[in-house]
């Protein structure tokens, strides 16, 4: 932080940090020669100092001891510990308080990492949960390395010089590149996880997409700008050029954290009916509100020159861990409550108007129909064996790309020939643009669905080939897009239907026999026959 802030008040000058003339006539015992001493004239003495302020000398000299510190050294130390805003000086900045805060942050981070790895299980949000676990482990590892370095440095100072310097701890934050890099990576991952959490808060597909785009852009921008000053300090000698960037990015991060806190608290307020419907839910909600406000709170504490101002980096990591992991846990429990309510209600999950707009059901149906028609026509014209492989790919393309409103694809019917049918450049550009937009949206949906979307795949099959086949069928039918759910249905059997059922059983057995002999594609499709699906986007 001292890149953009002046150090604490340095109006006090400590004479013990400069050479003091002690006069003449002292006998100095030689270290390696017993019973021998040197008579010294014009003696000058300077006490242990760091950055022109006294340091804590850990050698204990009791009053009964024949030796004592110089009066000036004692006076300077007494003055120094009266200053309230300097590391190593006053009680709140003393080395014990600093070590206590660092180790407590370490313990909190480890504790939350263990919770994240063991207790939180979200099959529906697998990717983001994996990212959260990696980020937590990285943060824990970073703090473990940091504490090890701190303790080793303190031990070395104590053994070699008999002093304890809190300043050396502060230098690790900026000078140790491994700490900077690991901290950067962990923070980046936590910020992506926070984007995932915000996506989880919203249910509409379009809003999820917007949050994903904006969140990723903000996170990447903030981190690229954040990483420039530390590396620039190592790479160039023009530190002053980067002085403006560091505080700006610092504030930018705080602004993002405040926005995150606002969104989460707004969502908590919306769900106030569920606060006390579950054991410990009220406490967890309160804790969530507190932890998402930690980062903005620490910013205020930081600029107010409270005792954490120099230790911001350690608190920063802990704030990110807590505000992500605890919010995740709160959301998990909230989801359980909401699922229970949805299961008890008649309508189930809410369906939004955007899922019904633009006749998506009809378009979906037309896609399937178009694919059927093309497949049919191709099969009549091509060899059956060759077609079984190529049609798989073609069907995927036709289903995913076919747009019923697309005039070009509509005009180009399968029974017509077109020669030199070049459209205008405008049409071509528009087509390319819309194709690019569709591709980007498809990719976004894939990322959103696979990382934070609901997991629709209820199959527990471990067979890789079967999974691939199912994935292909799902993609072909458009079931790999978010918001499409497969509901298995239970048939109600009446007594009068029993006879018909028996007939159907016989027919199904015959069908199964046929399916075993058919190609891979057929086998994959028949697995979905047992499910009715409700296609919504």
């Amino acid at each position, binding site marked *: 932080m001292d890149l*953009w802030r002046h150090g604490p008040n340095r109006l006090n000058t400590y004479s013990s940090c400069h050479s003091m003339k002690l006069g003449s006539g002292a006998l100095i015992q030689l270290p390696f020669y017993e019973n021998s001493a040197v008579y010294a004239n014009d003696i000058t003495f300077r006490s242990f100092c760091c950055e022109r302020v006294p340091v804590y000398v850990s050698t204990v000299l009791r009053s009964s001891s024949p030796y004592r510190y110089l009066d000036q050294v004692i006076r300077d130390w007494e003055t120094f510990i009266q200053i309230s805003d300097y590391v190593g000086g006053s009680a709140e900045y003393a080395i014990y308080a600093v070590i206590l805060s660092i180790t407590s942050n370490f313990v909190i981070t480890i504790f939350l990492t263990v919770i994240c790895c063991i207790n939180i299980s979200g099959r529906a949000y697998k990717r983001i949960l994996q990212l959260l676990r990696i980020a937590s482990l990285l943060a824990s590892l970073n703090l473990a390395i940091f504490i090890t370095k701190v303790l080793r440095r303190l031990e070395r100072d104590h053994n070699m010089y008999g002093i304890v310097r809190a300043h050396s701890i502060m230098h690790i934050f900026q000078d140790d590149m491994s700490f900077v890099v690991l901290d950067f990576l962990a923070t980046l991952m936590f910020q992506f996880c926070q984007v995932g959490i915000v996506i989880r808060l919203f249910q509409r597909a379009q809003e999820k997409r917007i949050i994903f785009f904006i969140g990723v852009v903000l996170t990447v921008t903030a981190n690229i700008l954040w990483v420039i000053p530390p590396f620039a300090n190592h790479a160039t000698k023009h530190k002053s050029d980067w002085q403006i960037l560091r*505080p700006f990015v610092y504030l930018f991060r705080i602004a993002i954290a405040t926005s995150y806190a606002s969104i989460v608290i707004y969502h908590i307020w919306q769900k106030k009916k569920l606060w006390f419907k579950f054991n410990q839910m009220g406490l967890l909600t309160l804790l969530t509100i507190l932890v998402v406000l930690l980062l903005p709170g620490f910013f205020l504490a930081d600029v107010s020159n409270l005792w954490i101002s120099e230790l911001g980096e350690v608190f920063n990591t802990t704030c990110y861990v807590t505000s992500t992991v605890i919010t995740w846990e709160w959301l998990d429990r909230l989801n359980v409550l909401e699922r229970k309510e949805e299961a008890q209600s008649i309508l189930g999950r809410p369906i939004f108007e*955007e899922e019904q707009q633009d006749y998506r059901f009809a378009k979906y149906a037309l896609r*399937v129909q178009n694919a059927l028609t093309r497949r049919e026509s191709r099969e009549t014209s091509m060899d059956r064996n060759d077609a079984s492989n190529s049609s798989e790919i073609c069907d995927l393309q036709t289903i995913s790309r076919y747009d019923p409103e697309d005039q070009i694809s509509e005009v180009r019917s399968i029974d017509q020939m077109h020669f030199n049918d070049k459209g205008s450049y405008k049409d071509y550009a528009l087509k390319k643009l819309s194709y690019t937009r569709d591709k980007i949206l498809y990719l976004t949906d894939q990322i959103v669905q696979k990382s934070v979307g609901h997991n629709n795949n209820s199959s527990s099959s471990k067979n890789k080939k079967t999974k691939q086949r199912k994935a292909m069928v799902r993609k072909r039918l458009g079931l790999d897009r978010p918001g499409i759910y497969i509901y298995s249905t239970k048939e109600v059997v009446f007594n009068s239907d029993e006879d018909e059922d028996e007939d159907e059983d016989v027919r199904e057995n015959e069908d199964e026999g046929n399916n075993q002999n058919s190609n891979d594609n*057929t086998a994959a499709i028949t697995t979905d026959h047992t499910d009715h699906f409700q296609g919504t986007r």
Partner: protein
Amino acid sequence: MVCMIHIVVFLLAITTVFEIFPLITVPVTKRLSLSSFRNHYYGLFGWCVRGKNKELMCTKKKIGYDSTDVDSSGHVLTLPSNSKVVVSNLLIVHPISLAFTLTLLILAVTIMVTPLGDSPEMLLFTALFSLPTFMLCLLCFLVDILLFISKLDWPGWLMLAATISVALCCSMLWVMRRVVSVRKYESQQSIAHVRPVEQYSISDVYLSKQGSDSSEYESTPTDGLTAPEITYRGFIE
């Protein structure tokens, strides 16, 4: 809906006024300041010091303070928060934020007085534009806090009110986007209800396309691509 856009315009107008106050602080005017500290008065375009004859002596008007500026008593400029003077260049976010808020206000007024208010795309654009506006407004307040901490004067604290106001506008714009989207859907549905509702099933469409050759469809169940049982409502003639 109408009420909501009026509230948004009203709040944005107030926010714009709030954001104008920091721009007219010292040395532009002599009465307003972002912060006052030890007889120093800090503004957006410079700072002033009150001399012994109670007269304000100000620096030249420019964004950010100069560390070489000295007051009449010869003291070098110091900021209340002990930040380095170069950080005051961040005050540039104030005019940028004002420009964004003004643009958002114009967009909101456009939505209010023109039929564009019924367009979900326009509302989506406005709602998206409100996000950087909110971020900039928040940044303005954070910069003020960073430079002047609790020594802020009321024009500085107005930025907090402006941030809350923009946050409210932002939420309302997103709510409006949802409302307009629902309204559009409902209007489409009402048109559909006026006309006779036609339902098509995939198999019917398929069979009609195949003509009388329905036996072929029935006889090829091994292809696996049995048409899903979906019905839909539309305007296919």
